[in-house]
């Protein structure tokens, strides 16, 4: 890293802005604005700061439609919206994917559109913390807000998460280094344990590293649970860990006054997927017999949790909600984006504030190349290359206000600091326009002629 002199040339400062990068949603950022452009960001980590400052890098400015030659051509908003609405209205199995980097207000319009046309609504949870949500649904959800961690926690465990790199301010602001009401000495009052096959940067600054073998998570946590119940371990080495280490770890966890387990994708996407989290939750529940423990998934995008909470609020299911029969359905393997794409079912795909082109497996992207794709985003990315209609949105938390939910479920109002480029529109406006246009093009499919109560609910 080279030395960068402090920025002194700015017009004004906007204080207490919320970072639109990871699930930490740090709401203490100060933006230094010059000529309607953020020239510097105070307090943010490098990830957040660069995202906010480089907002014009490869920016999508005007709506575009792919022509017969396969080239994206610039068009006006009406044409682009009409084309997109036509794709949606004519589709039989539309999928609306994304939502994690836009506001809850925009999701509200999205659900209205999805429910009207009978679409599948899904967000990035399907490729990141979906297994966590499934585990939560099977085992429960002992969670606490991050302030609770800051004020009380004396044992912090990271599992399958490299917070140092993925959520750079997590340790500083909420979990490890910060001073809290009962932890006035900050880092010195806390023990940090990292459980990860990799000797990650987080492990390097931890007090203890448990490097269990890859895919061994389930066996490892099961062994801890057995020890917590007072059982002698019969194998000498469990999931690559000597059994003495497991006894020691269990004792340390029992001795905590207030412990928190943060887990990331390292836990959700190894061999036994949601069952890793399932047993981690059960372990935390067991630990509550001895002391106070909680856990929190390290959510990636700043509003990925918001979509799950909002969908649960609207229809009772967190992600991968299929409205095609006129009522919500949720079934893993059936109503999730990747499964649908790999099965080559969808015939229209709207991606909003996400980049499937970069993140999805090859098989899924192959199908995306064959069907109409509508993209609502602010940056040019691999998905733009797949898109047939491109609708440039605006940057929540910088150019446009909106609500987001932090990884621990605390809602935060992200305020607007600068104006958006003249030709861009708010995400909320775009989706509402699409909804209104689709409503004109097609009568609502799959409505019941009369309300029929569900016999199970009587």
């Amino acid at each position, binding site marked *: 890293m080279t030395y960068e002199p402090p920025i002194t040339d700015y017009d004004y400062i906007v204080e*207490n802005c*919320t970072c639109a990068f990871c699930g930490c949603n740090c*709401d*203490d950022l100060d933006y230094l604005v010059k000529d309607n452009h953020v020239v510097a960001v105070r307090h943010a980590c490098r990830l957040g700061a660069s995202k906010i400052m480089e907002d014009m890098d490869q920016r999508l400015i005007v709506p575009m439609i792919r022509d017969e030659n396969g080239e994206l051509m610039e068009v006006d908003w009406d044409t682009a919206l009409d084309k997109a609405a036509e794709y949606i209205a004519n589709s039989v199995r539309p999928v609306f994917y994304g939502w994690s980097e836009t506001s809850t207000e925009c999701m509200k319009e999205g659900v209205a559109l999805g*429910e009207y046309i009978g679409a599948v609504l899904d967000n990035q949870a399907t490729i990141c913390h979906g297994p966590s949500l499934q585990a*939560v*649904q*099977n*085992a*429960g*959800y*002992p*969670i*606490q*807000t*991050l*302030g*609770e961690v*800051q*004020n009380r926690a004396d044992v912090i465990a990271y599992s399958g998460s490299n917070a140092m790199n993925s959520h750079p301010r997590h340790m500083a602001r*909420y979990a490890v280094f910060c*001073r*809290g*009401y*009962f932890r006035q000495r900050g880092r010195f009052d806390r023990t940090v344990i990292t459980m990860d096959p990799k000797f990650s940067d987080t492990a390097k600054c931890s007090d203890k590293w448990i490097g269990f073998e890859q895919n061994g998570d389930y066996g490892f946590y099961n062994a801890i649970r057995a020890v917590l119940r007072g059982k002698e371990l019969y194998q000498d080495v469990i999931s690559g860990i000597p059994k003495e280490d497991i006894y020691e770890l269990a004792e340390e966890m029992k001795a905590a006054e*207030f412990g928190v387990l943060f887990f990331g994708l390292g836990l959700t996407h190894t061999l036994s997927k949601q069952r890793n989290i399932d047993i981690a939750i059960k372990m935390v529940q067991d630990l*509550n017999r001895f*002391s*106070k423990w*909680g856990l929190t998934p390290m959510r990636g995008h700043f509003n990925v949790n918001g979509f*799950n*909470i909002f969908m*649960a*609020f*609207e*229809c*009772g*299911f*967190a992600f991968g909600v299929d*409205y095609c029969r*006129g*009522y*919500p359905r*949720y079934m893993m393997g059936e109503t999730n984006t990747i499964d649908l794409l790999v099965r080559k079912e969808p015939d229209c795909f709207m991606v909003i504030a996400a980049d499937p082109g970069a993140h999805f497996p090859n098989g899924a992207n192959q199908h995306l190349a064959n069907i109409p794709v509508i993209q609502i985003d602010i940056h040019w990315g691999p998905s733009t290359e797949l898109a047939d209609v491109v609708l440039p949105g605006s940057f929540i938390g910088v150019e446009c206000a909106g609500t987001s*939910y932090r990884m621990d*479920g*605390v809602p*935060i*109002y992200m305020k607007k600091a600068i104006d958006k480029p003249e030709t861009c529109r708010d995400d909320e406006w775009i989706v509402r326009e699409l909804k209104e246009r689709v409503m004109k093009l097609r009568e*609502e499919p*799959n*409505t*019941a*002629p*009369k*309300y029929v*109560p*569900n016999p*199970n*609910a009587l």
Partner: protein
Amino acid sequence: MEYILKNGIVYDPANEINGEKKDVMFKDGIIVDDVSSDAKVLDVTDKIVMPAGIDPHAHVAGPKLVVGRLYRPEDSRRGVTQKTKVLRSESGFSIPSCPATGYRYSRLGYGTVVEAAMPPLEAKHTHELKISKGYGIKIVNPCGSEAWGWGMNVHGVNDKAPYFDVTSKEVIQALAKANEYLNLPHSIHIHPNDLGHPGNVPTTIETMDAVKDIKKSSKATIRDQVMHLCHLQFHSYTGNSWRDAASGAEEIAKYINKNDHITCDVGQVTLDETTTMTADAPMEYDLFKLSGLKWTNKDIECETAAGIIPCIYSGKSPVNSLQWAIGLELFLHIDDPWKVCLTTDHPNAGPYTRYPRIISWLMSNQRRTEMIENREVHKWVEKRTTLPTIDREYDFYDIAVISRSAPARIYGFEDRGQLTPGYRADIAVYDINPNDIDPSRQYAEIEKGFNVADYTIKDGQILVKDKEIVKVKESQNIWVNVKGYEKQEQKVIDDIMPFFTQYYSVKWENYPVHDHYLSNPIRVDVEK
């Protein structure tokens, strides 16, 4: 638009109208004395007309509810219905989705519901003090949630919270005084310590006694009480453990009959599979250890905690049957129906969609006896409660009191809960002819009749017509704005600011609920 509800049989306890055949008129959303000849006539001959229901204590919009929905997809699946031209799709049984909650209340003839739990930090989520846009002060398991921060609990009102030199009795008294000092329309709303523990009767009575000498604010003219206890059923157990637990309802009811500073709602167990969620997190962990199903907990920094678990109340279980009987005992032992409200503490003791069934139990001694004799409930009901000996039956007037008029008075509502001219036209019509039915024998018809209202009218708009929802109205939020204390308020803010900045994980600027979140709010101003 003018309407006239013709020939209905009106029950309006606030105006002491008990089953009179009369017309109810309203114009532009307000009840009026007279309408012109152009008024649209809605024929409700021989049907029950009441003010729309008011639910004084339910969990329908709070942040923990959404966690409940998030983690119980199997419950959401139970109530899935297809959308229609008017309605959106519904889901959920004990924790219905947001639209389903509204629709089902409308079908029951309810017009107002009070969400009972909203931690200020997550108030934006509830989208409903000036800062957090709430209506009153609710106290849950005082000091217990603080202790839960360390995995402990407090027992009894004189226990101290760990690391804080304060007892729950002091907390209750201080907040009750503050409540009256601010002239808030509602009294403090308390969930006492020791919820659901056998032998908690003394704690409950001490809690009630703690505020006996606190004077009600002279400005709060509508309500009579200085303390409202919620889900009292869970606080009326005697004994030392569940082995020897029995009903303490009579003792509690006696205290309430003697003292006028207390009102309560019941939290009647409906014997369904439901989801319990309360800010009394330690209690939920105790329950989880019993059931071993799935346990959710949510601690909110410096403010509160919440626990959620799925719960199956079954008539076969002695404990659940005991709870069922205690709830009914409270209803029947408390002489003045104005002091008690109909709730299930939705969804803790059962979903609110079961209110009609509770009404049928209250109105029919025959049904209660049948349930006991047919072993629909466990024999503990006979052995450990006084329920079999009570033959009191509620009439329609009493039902109107406990489900509408009493909650309106307790909350100090000045605009709803009565059919008085000038009030909001929130009206419910049920397809029951009170002169032609014997509720004691025809309890099934009573339940059916109250299950779906013939008409539900909210602010003069007909939402339910002929038992079908015909219109969906955007909800409104009621919040209290206290005026005349701007200086003191600023001082409080200045005092807590260093604490806030250091120990909260959000900035002060991002803490209040912005006006952006309030869709057509109703602001209740309170002057000094």
